[in-house]
């Protein structure tokens, strides 16, 4: 039901019609903004504060023995709504047996950062708690190929910084 609006409900007086006082009030409001604290973040020099729960670049974690947690089960590939993950699973060769907790591992593990929508479904799907999204958000590069991150780029370095605490 529409509310009836009468046209001459409020007839403005001359003083109201010349709008001087509202304009001065408006000018006061804008003037306060002139001296207000600026909200700009000078990006490359000054970085914004990112929440630790931010969903950015992925990391493939290692377990406490330094072994790759990923067992190449392809659950994340299946869960990925953007089809950004590509995995080729294989049997662990005998000489590398100590680097993996099981005999199956991901031989190829690519994530296309241009396809990824950073939804975090891979994190949720992973039965081994191997993949996590980190607060790292700077992906700039000069070709599409370079933005397909391979396993080496994604896996945590042995003894390197802990990228994500689970």
């Amino acid at each position, binding site marked *: 039901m529409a509310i009836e609006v009468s046209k001459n409900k409020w007839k403005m007086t001359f003083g109201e019609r010349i709008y001087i006082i509202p304009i001065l009030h*408006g*000018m006061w409001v804008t*003037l306060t*903004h*002139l001296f*207000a*604290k600026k*909200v*700009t973040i*000078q990006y490359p020099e000054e970085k914004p504060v990112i929440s630790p729960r931010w969903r950015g670049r992925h990391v493939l974690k290692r377990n406490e023995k330094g072994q790759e947690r990923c067992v190449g089960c392809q659950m994340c590939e299946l869960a990925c709504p953007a089809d950004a993950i590509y995995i080729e699973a294989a049997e662990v060769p005998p000489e590398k047996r100590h680097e993996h907790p099981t005999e199956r591992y991901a031989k190829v593990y690519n994530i296309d950062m241009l396809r990824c929508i950073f939804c975090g479904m891979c994190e949720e799907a992973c039965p081994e708690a191997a993949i996590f999204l980190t607060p790292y958000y700077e992906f700039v590069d000069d070709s599409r190929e370079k933005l397909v991150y391979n396993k080496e780029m994604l896996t945590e370095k042995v003894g390197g910084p802990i990228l994500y605490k689970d």
Partner: protein
Amino acid sequence: MHTELWSLIIEKTIFGVILLAAIMTGAAYVTLAERKVASWFQDRIGPNRAGPLGLLQPLADGIKFFLKEDMIPKNVHKAFYLLAPGIAAIPPLLIAASIPWGNQIELLGKAIKLQMIDLNVGILFIFAFASIGVYGVMLGGWASNNKYSLMGGLRSSSQMISYELAQGTAVVGVLLLAGTLSLDEIVKQQDSLTKWYVWRQPIGFFIFFVASLAELARVPFDLPEAENELVGGYHTEYSSMKFGLFQVSEYIHLIVTSALISTLYFGGWQIPFVDIASNSSFIYGVLGVISLLLKTVFFIFVFMWLRWTLPRFRYDQLMSLGWKFLLEAAFVWIVITAILVLAFPWYKTWF
């Protein structure tokens, strides 16, 4: 006689070159100021990458304008299309030439007037050239062969004609008090703070200010280039330096109008409590110029301030404000001023 003429020519040439350079640089820096002030009003920082505090930004913009591809669309009226930016840019410069930027200064044993042309019909000259400036905008809009440009050109021509009337009428109050059309004389009469014409002509000043805002086609009267209705208005089809010329002319016009307001109502190059009219030493002359420039900068700032405060008028509102309110108010104000001048002699002498 002969040497006098030559020295006059040399003096005016040098002064003219300096004035032209100053006005052009000023216009370039007003574009920077526009962006900076806009940013500050929006809680941003604004351009700060080119040079310290972004001070080289106008230079970068200028280089960019020159290096951009100079495109001429296929179906434009070529002659008018090329002519329009020039016609738009020259009148504001001529107005700048007739504004007294300072009192005379003593240099090399010669009194040099800091005004290019001291006309006894200064104000009429300014209004004449201000209206010629509209031709540039109109021609640009029409010659572009683009409906948005044409709309912008039409809007600006009708808007400027409407508001020129109010502007010209409002200034009559000052002329009645001053008894002269020469800007130099008008400034010389405002030789103390109380004698600034704004105190005796508050309504006249208000009308003149609002009409100037419309003349400059700035917010809230920026309908000729209302970008969300008309793309870019009359300069939609212009690129590279031709667009730059329109832009520069707009900002020169802004500077000149602010200087004109200061000259007519705020004592021009006079400084309150300092008598610089009777002293033609170098220092006093320079102080006078600085005084006028400060007033000009203040009004430029006010124009920018209003831009970030007020929303744009609707076109019919703009027209009805111009024709049904400002013009009548200006006429009434002339009558009131005339009565005051005739009935109360102290109104003319004032303190």
